[in-house]
């Protein structure tokens, strides 16, 4: 527990850095918010007025102070297009994004880790070649394009999947919100029909994202399994006559997972970015599509709120990865 708190404290400077960068993006860069708010026909006078009302005429340190104070109160500003506080909208839309990303991550790990292990155990076999093709091709996929391809094949051609229009089709009612994850909430409500419908909607976007995240995970799993399988303690395990599964899973895989867990940080960076594109393709009502809509309307507060939220989430995810690493590796536990 103490270790967790220590790590949290260690993440504080990073969080401060994130806040500073987001502030710089909002206030200091040449994009002139006030001119924008005022609209194209505004006079210099009204621009100045808006500047004053937004506090943009104050010195920078003061602006930063106000920005920080607002953040501490959870105030991310108002959306111009919807007239709603950005914080409320992001909180309302976050579960949709989280459900999609988590499903994709689970799917990706579920395929990539066994694939990488099999490729390493049977080095040079057909499964090894598949793994290498997947690893190189996967990182080359533009997610927005693979998403469209899947829609064309599985919705338009085969008709196996529903139209790519959000989390549930228009006639279904969302389940009573407990976690905000439709799949879980529908199951909690024992509403199998809704659960099925939600599952049908999430399959394609989650697969699209997973295809993208698969590649780095499979690549690193294969490489680190190969390294571990060649190591001395695996030779000891074999010399002790331990069974094949024990050697591969208990001895090799657990050690090989350490680099895989580390790489998850990079995978999350990719996933959160790709999530934005996939949400646009599948009209998924998450925070990514919220940010894209705001971007197109040049509505800045939601975009900044979104960037900040994602960055904070990412810092927390990296923290989680760090803790997971400690759970697996006793050296990290005792060393710190």
């Amino acid at each position, binding site marked *: 527990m103490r270790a967790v708190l220590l790590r949290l404290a260690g993440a504080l400077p990073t969080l401060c850095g994130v806040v500073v960068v987001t502030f710089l993006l909002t206030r200091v860069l040449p994009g002139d918010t006030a001119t924008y708010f005022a609209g194209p026909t505004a006079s210099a006078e009204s621009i100045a007025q808006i500047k004053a009302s937004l506090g943009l005429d104050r010195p920078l340190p003061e602006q930063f102070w106000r920005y920080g104070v607002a953040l501490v109160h959870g105030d991310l500003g108002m959306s111009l297009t919807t007239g709603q506080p950005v914080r409320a909208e992001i909180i309302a839309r976050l579960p949709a994004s989280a459900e999609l990303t988590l499903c994709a991550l689970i799917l990706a790990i579920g395929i990539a880790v066994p694939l990488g292990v099999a490729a390493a155990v049977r080095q040079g076999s057909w499964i090894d070649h598949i793994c290498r093709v997947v690893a190189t091709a996967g990182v080359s996929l533009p997610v927005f394009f693979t998403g469209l391809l899947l829609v064309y094949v599985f919705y338009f051609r085969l008709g196996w999947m529903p139209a790519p229009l959000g989390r549930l089709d228009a006639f279904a009612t969302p389940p009573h919100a407990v976690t905000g994850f439709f799949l879980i909430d529908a199951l909690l409500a024992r509403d199998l029909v809704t659960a099925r419908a939600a599952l049908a909607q999430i399959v394609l976007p989650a697969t699209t994202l997973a295809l993208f995240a698969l590649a780095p995970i499979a690549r690193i799993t294969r490489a680190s399994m190969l390294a571990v399988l060649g190591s001395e303690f695996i030779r*000891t395990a074999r*010399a*002790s006559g331990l*069974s094949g599964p024990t050697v591969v899973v*208990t001895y090799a895989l657990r050690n090989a997972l350490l680099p895989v867990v580390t790489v998850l940080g990079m995978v999350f960076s990719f996933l959160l970015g790709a999530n934005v594109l996939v949400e646009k393709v599948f009209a998924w009502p998450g925070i990514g599509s919220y940010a894209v809509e705001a971007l197109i309307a040049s509505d800045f507060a939601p975009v900044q709120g979104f960037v900040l939220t994602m960055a904070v989430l990412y810092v927390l995810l990296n923290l989680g990865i760090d803790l997971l690493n400690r759970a697996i590796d006793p*050296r990290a536990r005792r060393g710190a």
Partner: protein
Amino acid sequence: MMAPTTDVLRVEDLSVAFQTRGGLVRALDRVGFTVGAGQTMALVGESGSGKSVTAYAVMGLLETAGRVTGGRAFLGQTDLLATPPRTMARIRGRRIAMIFQNPRAALNPIRAVGKQIADVLLRHGGATRSNARDRAIEALRAVGIPDPARRAKAYPFELSGGMCQRVMIAIAVAARPDLLIADEPTTGLDVTTQAVVMDLIGAMARGSGMATILITHDLALAAERANRIAVMHAGHMVEEADTATLLARPRHPYTARLIAATPTAAGSLASLQSVPGGLPDLRQADRLHCRYAGRCERRQDACDAVLTMRPAAPGHAVACWNPL
């Protein structure tokens, strides 16, 4: 038979080849020896002489590029070289066990040492899930680790090299094997720990009648610990005899060189001679003739004939056409 003991392992004509980019490397050529119950046989030679390859071939642990091209290795009545891999996995750890140099790297870095012993016990030793932990602690106590209940929870990085080698020995003897192969077990340990580890191996062997193969480049260590010594050079066995005979009256020129190159308590460093020349290239087609000829000062025309081990005296064999 003369030997009062029964043979635990009898290796006959063992040949191993490695497929490499540069061609087929004949790493072992017709190697043979026997080890009796309770005996310690030392395989001595420079690195690359084929000592470890011999052990790995017997264990069925050759890397994928390596292949046994001939010979038999009888463990009791079982020819290990003809045993299918699945059956070998049951024999390893139960009837033959092995310990390695660099013990800390030879243990799983993220598994508590007690669990690593329990894994072997569960597989071979007849332990059950409920008593595996206690038996692992017992095994740690048996190899002289103080406070074994606490140490069972330790990870290799928390133990000294000597402690790790004790754990390795505990793992190896957990299932009371008939044969222990110790591959450079003291390399990398400090001198006092070396003695302790070797004493421990000796005690384990005496207690259970276990045979030991000691693989080492250190002739002095072999002289101190082994009943018999087999000298290897470039994949050939060149001489085999009981320790006292071999040291007192070596017949092979290479053995004589090795003895001359080994510092003893009596000799001084000034009289130390190194063995001249390097190992020959083993990629050439069947090298059935003497592989030491290129380094040998006693070389003569007869040395180009096919080489075999021949008795030089009762219990003393040498592979040389012009022995000392």
